[in-house]
């Protein structure tokens, strides 16, 4: 049994709320015991300690972030070493290189990885498979992969924190204060990935 509601002080995590599964991330943060708020406009970034970019459609997110003038302000926050976590489309939004993206699709270009959109195929190819969260654990994290991207190459600074047993490909990756998942921890009741992100915020 996990401890209920450890005290996380005044940590507030923002969830980019332009499109996607925002409420599932806020629910997970609530279960971890951390306050959260929606981030829709630049001024929402002022009082947050970390930011989650949720799952959704990366082409839509790219457009809405650009139209809202959020690329520069969130980019400055990331440069200022604010922890940031992207799941699925959120990971695509952080990646340096996007394969099979739209030509006008943009990202924050901070994660030294190359990701392939819809890397496993269409919705019929979406799958559930266990993830091994580190070198010593059995593959016991419930991986939910929905039209998921695939990480096809990694820079030297990127650590692999989780591999899916389906094909041993990296699915949870970290580069300093940037965390990325090709799957959806927010759709499960296993809070370990969100807890990891909160520990990254606590380290700041």
């Amino acid at each position: 049994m996990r401890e209920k509601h450890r005290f996380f002080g005044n940590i507030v995590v923002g969830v980019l709320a332009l499109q996607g599964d925002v409420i599932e991330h806020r629910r997970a943060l609530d279960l971890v015991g951390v306050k959260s708020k929606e981030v829709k406009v630049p001024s929402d970034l002022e009082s947050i300690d970390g930011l989650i970019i949720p799952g959704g459609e990366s082409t839509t997110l790219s457009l809405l972030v650009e139209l809202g003038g959020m690329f520069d302000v969130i980019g400055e926050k990331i440069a200022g070493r604010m922890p940031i976590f992207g799941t699925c489309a959120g990971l695509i939004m952080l990646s340096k290189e996007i394969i099979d993206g739209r030509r006008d699709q943009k990202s924050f270009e901070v994660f030294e990885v190359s990701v392939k959109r819809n890397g496993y195929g269409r919705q019929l190819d979406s799958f559930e498979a266990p993830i091994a969260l580190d070198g010593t654990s059995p593959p016991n994290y419930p991986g939910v992969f929905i039209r998921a991207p695939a990480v096809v190459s990694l820079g030297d600074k990127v650590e692999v924190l989780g591999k899916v047993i389906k094909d041993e490909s990296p699915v949870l990756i970290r580069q300093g204060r940037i965390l990325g998942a090709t799957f959806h921890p927010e759709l499960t009741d296993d809070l370990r990935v969100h807890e990891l992100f909160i520990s990254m915020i606590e380290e700041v």
Partner: protein
Amino acid sequence: MASSEITNTHPDKEPSYTPSRAQGSIRLKRGLAEMLRGGVIMDVVNAEHAKIAEAAGAVAVMALERVPADIRRDGGVARMSDPALIEEIQASVTIPVMAKARIGHFAEAQVLEALEVDFIDESEVLTPADEAFHIDKWPFKVPFVCGATNLGEALRRIGEGAVMIRSKGEAGTGDVIEAVRHLRSILREIHAVSSAPIEEIANYAKVLGAPVELVQEVRELGKLPVPLFCAGGIATPADASLVMQLGAEAVFVGSGIFKSGDPATRARAIVEATAHFDDPALVAKVSKNLGEPMVGISASEVETKLANRGW
């Protein structure tokens, strides 16, 4: 958690998951619906429209041969689209592609699954194939969305396996009044159920004609157990803002975009207004100079109420 790079700890073991169970699960089907929240799903009739929709920020496109306004005008039997058209649209965009099957026409749904569409809409916009029964949606690996005009209808569809509900509205009219009626009806009944004492739940199930387990779930959640989107008559950014403020989690726009004077601009404006539905200044800004809206027809004057299809 240790952050050292992992090595394969089970090099000799067969994977413990079974692909047949690991794909097409309820979590994966409902999950895709959840990913579409806050977005706009646009009706498209060819690859060119699909590309315009994707460039304008659509989260998904609905591939069909005629938009509802034309189905209404032309009359006759409206069926599943030509598979060649669906494939052409699938090849032209990277976002999810949905397609419609007739109510009760499980063979059309099987064809759409064979085409690997991402979502099937069992839709009243097409001519129903079964006057009593909807498709049993549980055996399918592709997720289904169905229309509803009230809570009982929504829960019957969820009981049959739908993972997304859209309020029906009156498709092809450009008149938002029916969308508002159906959305308000569903939300009003959810509110009543969620504030009802537990002993009334079985009676609610009887009155609504809905599975008691789902009525109980609505009471506990205070919402549907699947995402609730809105369709049928949305034609302007302000229409999108209206239904999102009422409680829709995303919008379908059918004839409203490609029956207007400047589809690309209007599509993008509706995408922005849906994301920022609670920001009237932004809705005002994106509503400027959109060109001619869809002419439309008052929902009270239409001869065939599509919303009455479905049981």
